[in-house]
C-alpha cells in the first residue's frame, strides 16, 4: 500500500482522485504560506504570540516550521531552555514497573498502520515513543500514563522528529493547555464533554434535544475526540492544522472543531432514530471531503460555531466541574 508523507499507509479504499483534486488546490496555498512564514521567521529569533502570528497560525504552519512554532507558542521551548538535561535525567532516573508496563502494552498498538512505528522499522519510532511517555510519567506523577497520550506523543514525534521536544510539547498540552483530561479521575475530560453538551444545546438546539431524548451520554460520542485530540478521528493533515491553533489559542479550539462537525452534519444527525444510529452518524461525520479539505475546514471552525469566548467556556467548565464533584 502507498504511504503518506508522515509514514501512514493509505487504506485500500483511499480516494486518490478526490485527494488529488483537493491537494492540487491546497499545494498552491501551502506554497504561498511557506513564503509568508519564511519572511515572518527570517531574522527574528523567536516566534511570539501576536495578532499577526495568530492569523498566520490559523492559516496553517508549514511542516518545516511546525516544531519550532509549536515549541515557541506553547511555552515548551522556554521550559526546555530553563531545564537543560532534565529530560535525559528523567530517562536515567528511577523506574516504575507499573508505568513502564502500561506504556509497553500500547507500543505495538500505536499506529500499526505507520511504517515508521513498526517494530521492524530501522530505526523504529517505538523506542522514542516509549522514552517520551515514560519520561512524562516520571515527570508528572499525578497523571502518569493515560491511554490516548500514546497517539498524541506519536504525532509529536512525527512532527518534531525529536524526543526531547516531543516531551516538552506533551508537557505543555497535558500540564497547561488541556484541563486535566488524563489524570486518574479524568475530571477535565468529563467536564468538557458536559460543556460540549451545553454548547450544542445552546447553538444547535435540535441536536441537543435529539441527544437528550435518547439519553445518550456525550462520552459515548466524543470521548475519543477529546482524549486523542482528533488523532485517528480526522485526517492527519487536518489534525495538525487543528493542533497549530491548539498550541497557540488553547483548548477551546476543540469545542470549535466539535461544534463545526456537528453543525455541518446537523441534518444527517437529526435523521438518527436510536442510540447506536446516533453513534454511527457521529463516526460518519468525521470522514469524507469536508474534513479532508483542511484549509476550508479550518476557516469554517472560526465562522460556523459563532462566538465562543474563553470566559463563557470557563464559566461552563466551572459549573460542570462543580456538579461532577458533587456527584462524586
Amino acid at each position, binding site marked *: 500500500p502507498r504511504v503518506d508523507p508522515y509514514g501512514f499507509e493509505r487504506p485500500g479504499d483511499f480516494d486518490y482522485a478526490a485527494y488529488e483534486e483537493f491537494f492540487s488546490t491546497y499545494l498552491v496555498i501551502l506554497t504561498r504560506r511557506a513564503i509568508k512564514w519564511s519572511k515572518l521567521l527570517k531574522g527574528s529569533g523567536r516566534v511570539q504570540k501576536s495578532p499577526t502570528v495568530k492569523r498566520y497560525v490559523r492559516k496553517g504552519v508549514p511542516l518545516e516550521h511546525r516544531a519550532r512554532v509549536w515549541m515557541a507558542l506553547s511555552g515548551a521551548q522556554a521550559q526546555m531552555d530553563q531545564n537543560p538535561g532534565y529530560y535525559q535525567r528523567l530517562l536515567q532516573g528511577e523506574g516504575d514497573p507499573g508505568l513502564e508496563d502500561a506504556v509497553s502494552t500500547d507500543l505495538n498498538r500505536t499506529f500499526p498502520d505507520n511504517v515508521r512505528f513498526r517494530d521492524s522499522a530501522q530505526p523504529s519510532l517505538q523506542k522514542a515513543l516509549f522514552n517520551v511517555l515514560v519520561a512524562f510519567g516520571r515527570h508528572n506523577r499525578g497523571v502518569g500514563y493515560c491511554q490516548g497520550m500514546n497517539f498524541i506523543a506519536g504525532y509529536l514525534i512525527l512532527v518534531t522528529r525529536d524526543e526531547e521536544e516531543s516531551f516538552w510539547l506533551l508537557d505543555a498540552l497535558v500540564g497547561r493547555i488541556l484541563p486535566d483530561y488524563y489524570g486518574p479521575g479524568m475530571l477535565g475530560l468529563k467536564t468538557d464533554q458536559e460543556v460540549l453538551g451545553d454548547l450544542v444545546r445552546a447553538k444547535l438546539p435540535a441536536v441537543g434535544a435529539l441527544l437528550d431524548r435518547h439519553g445518550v451520554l456525550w462520552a459515548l460520542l466524543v470521548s*475519543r475526540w477529546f482524549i486523542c485530540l482528533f488523532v485517528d478521528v480526522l485526517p492527519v493533515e487536518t489534525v495538525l492544522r487543528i493542533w497549530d491553533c491548539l498550541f497557540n489559542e488553547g483548548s477551546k479550539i476543540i469545542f470549535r472543531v466539535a461544534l463545526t462537525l456537528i453543525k455541518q452534519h446537523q441534518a444527517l444527525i437529526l435523521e438518527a432514530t436510536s442510540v447506536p*444510529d446516533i453513534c454511527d452518524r457521529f463516526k460518519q461525520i468525521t470522514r469524507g471531503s469536508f474534513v479532508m479539505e483542511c484549509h476550508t475546514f479550518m476557516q469554517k471552525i472560526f465562522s460556523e460555531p459563532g462566538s465562543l469566548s474563553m470566559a463563557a467556556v470557563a464559566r461552563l467548565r466551572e459549573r460542570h466541574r462543580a456538579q461532577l464533584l458533587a456527584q462524586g
Partner: protein
Amino acid sequence: MSRKKTPRSKGAGTPAANGPRPARSGTARPGPDAPPNGSLQPSRPSLGGGDFYDVAFKVMLVGDSGVGKTCLLVRFKDGAFLAGTFISTVGIDFRNKVLDVDGVKVKLQIWDTAGQERFRSVTHAYYRDAHALLLLYDVTSKASFDNIQAWLTEIQEYAQHNVVLMLLGNKVDSAHEHKVKREDGEKLAKEYGLPFMETSAKTGLNVDLAFTGIAKELKQRSMKAPGEPRFRLHDYVKREGRGDSCCRP
C-alpha cells in the same frame, strides 16, 4: 457471588424480556439505550445496521488493558485475527453481530471498552444497560488475573444484579509462558459461580462458543417456550468448550 440488591433488580427474573423498562427521566445522566433494549422486536431492519433480527441484547467486554478484548470481538465479528494491526481502544465503542439461535435471529450489540483503570469511571455508566458481561484476563499476565477481583467488585456495584457473566482466560495460544494455569481460572470461576473457558482470539478457540453461549442464555431468558428444556450456560460451556492442547507450541 453475593450480589448487592438494587431497587432495579427487585423481582426481575429476566434482564431483558417482556416489556420496556420504565422511561428514563430527563437528562439525569442516563445510559445509552440498546435500541430494543432486549425486548422482543418483530423482525424489522435494525436501525443503523441494515440487518434483520428478532431480539437484541447488549454485551460488554471488560478486563485489563491488553488482555485482548478488541481482538476477541473482531475474531467473533469478522473471523479474523488482528495481528499487529489494531490500536489501543480509547473510551468505548461497539459492533453488532446477528446470530441464529435455534431459528431466532439474535442481535448482539457488543461494547468494547478501554481497559486502563482510569477509564472505568467513564465506562461504568454503561454497565447498567448491559445484559451480559464477558470478563477477560490474559493467561500470560498474572496481574490481569489478579485484577479480576477488582473487576467483579466494579461489576457488582454498577451492573444489573442478574447480568449474565462469563470469565475468559484469553491468549491461551501464546508461546509466552502461561502465568495463570487453567486450574486457577477454574477455581476462581467456581468461587464466584461463573462459567469459564480459556480462549484464543488468535486461533479462534472457544471464541464463537462464548458469544453463542451468551446469546442462547439471553434468548431463553427473554423468550423461553413452555416445555422447552432450560438452557444451562455452565453446562454448555463445559460440554462444548475445547482445551488448547492442539495449539500449544
